[in-house]
């Protein structure tokens, strides 16, 4: 249990949000040209980091907007929050 500061609504309980997993995975521009290996890499393979992770969250029980969070997955401490499209902070 932890608190997340939504960039639009402010600090709320984590239970108001839906986790969207690893951030900055870009959809391939030409999916038809990918090999099966590359498609599996995009679709299934994840960093699943123990430590500082860049991830997406959705304020599903609030403004319903998506944004990015930098969180230490070893202790759930949030380092930074930034909006979609913004440059990821250096941590």
């Amino acid at each position, binding site marked *: *249990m932890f608190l997340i500061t939504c960039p639009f609504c402010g600090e709320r*309980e*984590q*239970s108001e949000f*839906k*986790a969207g*997993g*690893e951030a900055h995975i870009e959809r391939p521009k030409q999916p038809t040209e990918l090999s*099966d*290996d590359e*498609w*599996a*890499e995009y*679709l*299934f*393979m*994840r*960093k*699943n*980091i*123990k430590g500082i*992770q860049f*991830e997406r969250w959705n304020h599903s029980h609030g403004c319903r907007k998506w944004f990015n969070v930098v969180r230490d*997955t*070893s*202790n*759930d401490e949030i380092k930074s929050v930034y909006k979609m499209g913004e440059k990821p902070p250096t941590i």
Partner: protein
Amino acid sequence: MKNKYSIFSLIKNAFSYHENWQKAWKDPVIKKEYDAIIVGGGGHGLATAYYLAKKHNMKNIAVVEKGWIGGGNTGRNTTIIRSNYLWDASAGLYDHALKLWEGLSQEINYNVMFSQRGVMNLAHNLQDIRDLKRRTHANRLNGIDAVYLSTEEVKKFCPIINTSPDIRYPVLGGTLQRRAGTARHDAVAWGYARGADEMGVDIIQNCEVKGIKRNGDEVEGIETTRGFIKTKKIGVVAAGHSSVLANMAGLRLPLESKPLQALVSEPVKPVIDTVVMSNAVHAYVSQSDKGELVIGAGTDDYISYSQKGSHDIVEGTLNAILELYPIFSRMRMLRQWGGIVDICPDASPIISKTTIKGLYFNCGWGTGGFKATPGSGDLFAHTIANDAPHKLNAAFNLNRFISGDLVDEHGAAAVAH
């Protein structure tokens, strides 16, 4: 040679106030090189080492564990054992494990307290009924015992369930696997450790793996907090930390590690003599031999290695438990904890070779790995010893995420993951 555990050894040791029991496993001096190293001293890892030594005659092997054996998810699960999975591949895998459970206490001369008290899965809506009936038929075609129960039969089998049609998620029916049940999880780790140790396996505790050394496409050994150990074969069975170890070898896995919570109540007299699971409301309950209710909750949806989950998950589970069993309304919960489970996109495990020669992974068991412990160890040992999968784990390879031949047990596996 280990002294045999029996009623006679129990009486004999009672005369010396149980102070002279032989050590169940030694604290070995680490050798420079092993024929194979198993990373992770939980139930699956110790079982792997046991079957490698017993069935494949690989005795110069070691199990390395960063903490103490059985101190991870092996000691954190809700001890449920069943094999009523939908798909053929899963049915083969989990029923192989269940058959091994049935003779395990005798085989390893260690009472794992395997109790075939039955596992009941409840249906709460029409779709649940269709799904559970379909699964019952699939189970029977695969030789797995399963019966579909009406609401009245559910009530008869477990009288404390509230079968009133007026509750939010009424009980409309259920399935029952009578061969399913529970076992004492610590005993499984200790029993396999004792058996493996007897055959010469080194069980190295307090030894964290810090790196996997590669020479091109082959493994050379592991860097640990207690020095470098050389080996040509590494079997990783690290549950929630599988991705961390894969990363050390420069490998990517399709896993996400999430907290899964469980809790136990204060001990009471016997009140529920089976295991009842509900997919729709995600709550399951059984009673331990000590009398505690053992309650399992769901996973949180975010990646975390913190071994603690959110309160709202526990609250949701307890809401469901109270509606299904109003008799528990004044019980107090004694302990609550979280474990880190590694979940695959198709909610099925990976027991597989990798693109690196000599590196094998057994992971992705998600929320339900305990039940498979003996089968998982047996099949992983086969895979490591022969450098090729057994036919029962051939479908559970890493390549399925590239070929698309998934074993999609999400929802189909009798409980949501």
